């Protein structure tokens, strides 16, 4: 595309099919003990 650069190819809607295994890290256990940040967690299955 001439006017657009898309940064990611993974679509959130596609994770409905395979997601939800629940093995990934609980967000509060990492580095935020006071503000919930989930979007930056890593998927256990893409490690």
């Amino acid at each position: 595309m001439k006017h657009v650069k898309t940064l990611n190819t993974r679509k959130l809607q596609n994770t409905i099919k395979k997601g939800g295994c629940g093995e990934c890290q609980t967000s509060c256990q990492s580095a935020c003990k006071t503000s919930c940040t989930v979007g930056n967690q890593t998927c256990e299955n893409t490690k």
Partner: protein
Amino acid sequence: MVHQYKNNGYNIVLDVNSGAIHVVDDVVYDVIPLWETHSKEEIIEKLKAEYKESEIAEAIEEVAELEKDEVLFTKDEYEDYVIDFKKRPTVVKALCLHIAHDCNLACRYCFAEEGEYHGRRALMSYEVGKKALDFLIANSGNRRNLEVDFFGGEPTLNFQVVKDLVAYGREQEKIHNKNFRFTLTTNGVLLNDDIMEFANKEMANVVLSIDGRKEVNDRMRPFRNGSGSYDLIVPKFQKFADSRNQTNYYARGTFTHFNLDFAEDVLHLADLGFKQISVEPVVAQDTDEYAIREEDLPQLFDEYDKLAAEMVKRHKSGEDFNFFHFMIDLEGGPCVAKRLSGCGSGTEYLAVTPWGDLYPCHQFVGNEKFYMGNVTEGVTNTQIRDEFKSCNVYAKEKCRECFARFYCSGGCAANSYNFHGDIHNAYDIGCALQKKRVECAIMIKAAEALEEE
């Protein structure tokens, strides 16, 4: 839902429901807000004073293509999915163990009131800790990875119990085919070679509490006699971070109304050599003098912008560091289910007091209304669990219209409760800061991607 903004010279478009992020030129940036309410002819008519008609036509074509590919103007089809997902049986997979309700510092913003959580000082016994691990294993269903954070107060005040519980966990994980991930949160005062060596062998992550510049840290993190902790902890933390090869740890700080220029503190930590940094806004009652106020927001937004721009610069010069709240994994980020279910407090994540009582998370410990049960009998107050289980972005009015809902997943229940007396609300100042952080984090990714070209 589409969110578009300009930051650090980039035009950024976030398609909220697909998670797609586009960096666009000015003409596409101006076409997008008109897209859903205007015909192609009307768009051209509206923009032709500013752009060539052929350019507008090209932009329209590209926007149409993105929409067709379901990476722009994607519909939100997750609400029914979250209902199904939430019907699954609850498992517990993470515990915050309050190894010590006592502390050797007297941090002024401590929600645990010098480690005591509005109660008496106490250390968790090995017996209680063991029961907590047994409870976790017994309630974890088919989850294999189980997380246990040694928290406090200050857990190094009771470190022998930490060591013994890790040994017990390692023995039990083999029997039950589980994998324990232990973490430690410490203020560093008692940190020594023995603790570091043990932690490097056993702890998947360590959180090292430090607020940044000496005067900032020492103002909020003094000893009980009033003297500062910075000089004692900095060399230990530096050694600890190096001994972990600058990975799997966070130098973690809190900023307050007293250091609204907190980007300086983040950069100070980076200049001290820390590569993994997390500095976040204080959680306080609005009557506290150190609480963040609404009028502080413009300055805090500027600080996040400044920090993000500086991180882009440092990335280019090879002096980069990680800032937890700007981390976004564009290719391997969490699935929708994770983004919808949030931090898991009160359901898959529970806090355990030194006496073995269960609470939805460390922030609720000491508030008897949120007592959920204990490690011997398990969760007996299932009403609280169900209330937390029902707490997601579709249950919160404010989240439904928010572009950041799949990044914060509805925010911190404790924050919401502190400000509104209800976990199904959202803490507005926290939301404003969260949105800003998401914007900055995406900008950094845009800068990195375009730099690689």
